[in-house]
């Protein structure tokens, strides 16, 4: 059996980028966690040669990387697509200053919406900010392009955007790797206010330089080996493809010519024009927006693209083949068996999640409007709580709540406005929103759910955790003091245990009545992190359970219905009784479901009985 070559590793795109960042002699790396980008920094944090951090948001992460690059070191920052919306303020000026040390910005586009609030195409940032965009097609390329990007960045003194998508970030493939080479600091920070201080006058002088750079970048894209033509026997259609779509095209049409774009912004228009002349029909296959397609059309190059292919989601072979068959006038590929109708399995909150009690409580309160936020909190919009009325972007629950308050019409006159936010999201973007509520005297009750982690992405630490990226002790922010400093009155700040339902209920009920800003902080760790301590599990006594179903409303996934029965109430009304059991093997004994159970049917599990598992 041939042994696998030790210099070939089986890496995801994220791991491959991290490896390349390390090999390139990078000194500083920063990010805010976000699917599908998170693992890049997680892996980088394991290399002792690189300073790495979880920043409070993507803008700060980019700023840290910019500072390091200004100081002459190689720097890296990673984010998911929506993170660049946050970081873009820094980006749009960075493009004028440029960099000294190589700076690579990896942006992970969640094509297919595996866990995001929108689907957006980060190649536009390249065009918007006049920056080069590299697009790897698999892990090997993610590795190679990251290394090239550092060199290119230094050569042109320009940050390089590495556009990845979920199918690059989270696909594992074999990667031939090398070793780390120390990269010297390029001479330290050199004072040069005309370049680093972007006053209007200074910026005005840098803009023409950016246009000059555009010309150089366009010329570089035309000749870059990252943009290569692969000839094919069947010239009826030729493809322009980048990123994962390149692999899908090769898989679907092995005989067709392909121009692969690895350096896709600026678009190498002339190279594509030459290629287009060699095929009958040109098809641009790009995931999400028709960016290249529009440039080609503007340059007078006839092509197909979004007239055939979806503007949403992945362009995998099952999408490509029927679309192109139609263009060629061929019958669509043979009909495949349709998927069976099976219940949906949407993500749920974890067993014993400290947010369960909060959403359960909110679902019991009438006449409120709740603005929600990004993260596990978004799950509160689902069953059984249905407790969120809006979710836009990270930190937005604050400002939207204020807007709901100030903009309310007659119909909402008596509604109470609540905003929900997590610790990490509050530090990311929520603080300023709360400050605005305070300053502008909004009537909003804020629920700050501090679970000491970025829960949704796997429990990464934040400044509320008391731990840094390496798990080492770090200063821990005091949320009660922080919100007080933002101007919330001390008597309007409550720290409550979210597992104590009556206390929580009382705090919310009282605060929503008071016509000013209140902050209720819940303080229990996310069940995914080490701070969470399991207790003995509970079980349901069959003989006592009345089938009222109150415990189900808590929404803990450890509670299952074993039997439904119809019953007639004394009033003559028909009700459905739901008899339950608790999955003792996963119950952590948090005690939440015990509280709404009137007949005390939920009791500590009898340790002498074997644990029950799923239904067999």
């Amino acid at each position, binding site marked *: 059996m041939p*042994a696998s070559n030790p210099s070939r590793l089986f890496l995801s795109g994220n791991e491959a980028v991290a490896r390349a960042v390390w090999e390139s002699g990078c000194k500083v790396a920063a990010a805010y966690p976000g*699917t599908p980008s998170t693992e890049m920094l997680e892996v980088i944090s394991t290399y002792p040669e690189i300073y790495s951090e979880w920043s409070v948001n993507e803008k700060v992460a980019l700023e840290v990387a910019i500072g390091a690059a200004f100081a002459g070191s190689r720097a890296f920052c990673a984010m998911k697509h929506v993170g660049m919306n946050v970081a873009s303020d820094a980006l749009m000026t960075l493009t004028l200053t440029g960099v000294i040390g190589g700076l690579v910005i990896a942006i992970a586009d969640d094509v297919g919406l595996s866990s995001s609030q929108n689907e957006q195409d980060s190649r536009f940032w390249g065009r918007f900010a006049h920056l080069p965009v590299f697009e790897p097609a698999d892990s090997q390329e993610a590795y190679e392009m990251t290394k090239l990007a550092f060199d290119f960045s230094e050569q042109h003194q320009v940050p390089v955007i590495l556009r990845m998508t*979920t199918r690059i970030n989270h696909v*594992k493939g074999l990667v031939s790797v090398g070793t780390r080479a120390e990269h010297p600091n390029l001479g330290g920070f050199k004072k040069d206010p005309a370049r680093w201080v972007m006053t209007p006058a200074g910026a005005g002088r840098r803009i023409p330089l950016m246009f000059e750079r555009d010309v150089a970048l366009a010329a570089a894209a035309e000749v870059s080996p990252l943009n290569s033509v692969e000839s094919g026997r069947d010239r009826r259609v030729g493809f322009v493809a980048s990123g994962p779509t390149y692999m899908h095209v090769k898989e679907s049409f092995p005989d067709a010519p392909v121009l692969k774009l690895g350096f896709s912004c600026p678009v190498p228009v002339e190279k594509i024009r030459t290629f287009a002349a060699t095929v009958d029909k040109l098809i641009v296959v790009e995931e999400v927006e028709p960016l290249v397609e529009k440039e080609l059309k503007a340059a007078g190059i006839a092509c197909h693209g979004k007239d055939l292919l979806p503007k949403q989601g992945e362009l995998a072979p099952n999408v490509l083949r029927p679309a192109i068959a139609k263009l060629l006038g061929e019958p669509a590929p043979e009909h495949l068996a349709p998927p069976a109708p099976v219940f949906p399995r949407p993500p749920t909150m974890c067993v014993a999640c400290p947010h369960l009690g909060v959403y359960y409580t909110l679902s019991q309160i009438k006449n409120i409007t709740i603005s929600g936020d990004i993260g596990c909190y978004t799950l509160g919009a689902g069953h059984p709580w249905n407790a969120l009325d809006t979710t836009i972007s990270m930190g937005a629950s604050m400002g939207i709540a204020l807007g709901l308050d100030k903009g309310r019409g007659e119909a909402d006159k008596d509604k109470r406005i609540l905003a929900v936010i997590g610790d990490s999201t509050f530090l990311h973007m929520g603080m300023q929103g709360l400050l605005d509520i305070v300053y502008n005297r909004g009537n909003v009750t804020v629920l700050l759910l501090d679970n000491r982690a970025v829960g949704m992405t796997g429990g990464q630490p934040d400044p509320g955790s008391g731990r840094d990226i390496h798990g080492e002790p770090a200063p821990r922010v005091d949320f009660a003091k922080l919100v007080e400093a933002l101007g919330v009155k001390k008597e309007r700040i409550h720290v409550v245990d979210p597992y104590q339902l009556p206390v929580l209920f009382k705090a919310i009920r009282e605060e929503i009545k008071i016509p000013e800003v209140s902050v209720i902080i819940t303080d229990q760790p996310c069940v995914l992190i080490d701070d969470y301590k399991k207790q003995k599990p509970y079980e349901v006594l069959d003989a006592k359970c009345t089938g009222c179903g109150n415990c189900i409303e808590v929404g803990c996934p450890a*509670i*299952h219905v074993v039997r439904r029965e119809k019953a007639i109430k004394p009033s003559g009304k028909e009700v459905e009784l739901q008899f339950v059991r608790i999955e003792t093997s996963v119950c952590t004994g948090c005690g939440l479901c015990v509280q709404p159970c009137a007949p005390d049917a939920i009791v500590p599990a009898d340790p002498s009985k074997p644990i029950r598992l799923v239904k067999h």
Partner: protein
Amino acid sequence: MPESNVTNILVVGIGGQGVMTATEILAEAAIALGHDVKKTEVAGMAQRGGVVSSHLRFGPKVLSPQIMPGTADLLVAFEAAEGLRWCHYLKPGGLVLMNTAQIVPPVVDLGLYDYPPDPIAEIRAKGYRIHAFDAMKIALELGDVRLGNTVMLGAMADHLPFPADVLLEAIVKRFRARKPQMVELNQKAFEAGRTAEKAAAHAKETETA
């Protein structure tokens, strides 16, 4: 059109069941044999009790990481309803290896949807072959529910284009490096899965004979 010399294996289940680890071990076995390998999954919110599907493709050269519906050689389902959800990914007449344990999601407990009454029969009715057994029970009998994914790997062992030993070696290697005290137990789980699958296959044949 697809490269016929690429093997497509789809492993499905629920977040937390070890679907991705099992596929990773399978990938390591394929790598040990010198294949080109790609593996992908949708796992963004998998930790939150959602569906996990892990695609593994290996052969001389693999391009797209995704298995197309209708082309999988083998579907390994760690949960009964998930077997039904994904069976259209199999090529016609393809084989499902199924853990019959049922993990009921909150939407079913809330009465918003029904759990399919007989996923096995439905899969058969669609013309696929299926070998089903209770892997969770076997794992528990061996003393640890987390052995379930090794049991499922054992079930796969005789349906791969390479000898079962190569897969067992990949498992042993992984545990030797991470949890040496678990090596022996995993070897047992692997053999138990292999035996259970054979029995399930046999039961199926006698039933149809």
